[in-house]
């Protein structure tokens, strides 16, 4: 019995030791990120998917890359090499699971990829600057002008226009596509944040659901503003509280913040 007890204890210790990365084959050299993927691309129907790109793991083992029906995306995806498509899928998968590019960029990158990333980051930053400006305008507008609906309206209109414009962008590289997806995530996080903040607002704003919002035109700026204008004082305070403690409000804003820092660090 002693002869069997010793291997038993050793086995349990080895098993516990492998818990950092629980897959025992990873400790033996298996690299899941290096595996080829059976990928099929599927065009999302109108209003079917809010994402520019998303992934579904099919029960048949195939990966379905769902993309929004925009000519630029379709042409780009169609022209991708198998290697490029796999890289895109892995990246989108990683982003969807972990919300930032830290590991992706921390991995070994060749010079071409690094150059492409530099362009991408400039592209992302230009869009993010616009978004941040718009969010700031909303906050400033509410704080400084209190009930000045015209200021707030203009800012929110710009924010939503920015969102709509993203899907009309013409990506030239895989990195562009990823960047647009990242920015979309960030924008939706902002909207998600607004939605949560709006919980504090009683009345008809609660009637507007996420799905209504995401379908074209159901939640108009006028609808939103009419509620905001009736509850502006409370909204201002809630918004300011939320921004001060943003980590607790949106799950993805911190990733967006860290993305900038990580990218800068990697490229320096």
């Amino acid at each position, binding site marked *: *019995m002693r002869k*069997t*007890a010793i291997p*038993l204890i050793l*086995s*349990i210790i080895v*098993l*516990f030791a*492998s*818990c950092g990365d*629980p*897959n*025992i*084959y*990873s400790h033996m050299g*298996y690299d*899941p*990120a290096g*595996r080829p*993927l059976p990928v099929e691309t599927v065009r999302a129907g109108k209003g079917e998917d*809010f*994402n520019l790109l*998303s*992934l*579904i*793991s099919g029960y048949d083992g195939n*990966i379905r890359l769902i993309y929004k029906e925009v000519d630029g995306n379709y042409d780009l995806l169609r022209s991708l090499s198998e290697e490029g498509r796999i890289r895109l*899928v*892995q990246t*989108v*998968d990683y*982003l*969807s*699971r*972990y*919300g930032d590019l830290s590991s992706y960029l921390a991995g070994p990158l060749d010079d071409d990829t690094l150059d492409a990333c530099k362009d991408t980051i400039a592209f992302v930053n230009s869009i993010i600057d616009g978004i941040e400006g718009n969010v700031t305008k909303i906050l400033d507008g509410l704080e400084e002008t209190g009930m000045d609906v015209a200021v707030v309206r203009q800012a929110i209109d710009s924010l939503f226009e920015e969102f709509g414009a993203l899907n009309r962008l013409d990506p030239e590289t895989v990195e562009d596509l990823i960047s647009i*997806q990242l920015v*979309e*995530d960030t924008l*939706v996080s902002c909207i*998600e944040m607004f*939605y*949560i*903040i709006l*919980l*504090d607002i009683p009345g008809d704003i*609660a009637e507007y*659901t*996420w*799905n209504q*919002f995401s379908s074209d035109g159901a939640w108009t700026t006028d609808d939103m503003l009419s509620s905001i204008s009736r509850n502006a004082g409370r909204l201002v305070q*809630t918004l300011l509280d939320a921004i001060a403690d943003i980590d*607790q*409000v*949106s*799950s*993805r804003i911190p990733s967006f913040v860290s993305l900038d820092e990580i990218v800068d660090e990697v490229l320096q």
Partner: protein
Amino acid sequence: MRRSAACILILLLTCSLLAGTGITAQGRGQAVLTDDSVRHAFTHNPAFITSSDFSLHIPIQTRVHNVTGILGSDFTGNIKGIMSGDARRMATSILDILRSFNGRMDLLEVEEGLSFTLKGLGAGVFLRQKAVTYDGSLGMRFALEMEAELDWGLGWRWDLDNGYTIAAGLVNRTRIGLRTSLVGVDTVVDFLLDPPSALDISLEEDIANSFDIGTYFCLPYGFSTSFVVRDIGPDGNTATIDTAFGWKGSLSILSLSLEAGLKGWSSIRDEVDLMKSLDAGLSLGITSLLSISAGIDGGYPSFGIDLELLCFAISAAWYWQDYGVVYGLAPRDVLSIEIALLID
């Protein structure tokens, strides 16, 4: 009166000590194809319908997925937030907990069962309720899945000379599944604000019928082997074949059982399929009251502890499941706790 009660208790304890300890499959890497326990007759090997002339098994099991992910968030703060009654705090706490769930992942499962075997006949009904998350980079959505499973089976056992035993069994399984439409943050919010509005959720149903056929060969010197054809559907295309080889031995109050096997080996196409198919497990019993288990299922470790007292069994298991688009990319751990009435 007191003396009679004490006698009954001693009798029950003695019976309990003499009976075999059941183990949960999850704690042993699902390596229970040669465990020869009615506990696994409807889940792993139909041949075990004959493991006992009579058995009654009523388990209630709860599984919490992504335990370390949930605990990794501000768990205490989030629980307080959910309990606060404040809609915004509740929503943000729920979102924070859901942060580590991406894509289609199980969140919480509850399973209730009732099964019995009698002289080679067996039947069981199992009910499962599961909350599942969907989507990833954008607003999280989830669905409730409910499943009712009705099983019946037959088994035969032949005890031959020289310590050989052959058992075979067949289980027919009918599953009726229901899934709610996907709900998102908005629905949670709506529910918090106005519960009746959330009742609009539609249901999708799915009915499936399949057979499992299993065999079990008990060999001399504690060795055994099993062979199970699983999920034989109407078209037969989805069937998989599992096989395992095991050994059992005991010394005084200690018992040890080992098993290694291949799941779905008929569909192994490459080394990744092989990694996912291999499982192995061991359990160490200390009297028949307590056993500890460990195993590897598809490359992921598992641990379990089982306590059996009189006709009640309490089991806990900790194991991993992989949700990656590629095997190995997204492992999540699962904590399972089962309380069962088990008479065999």
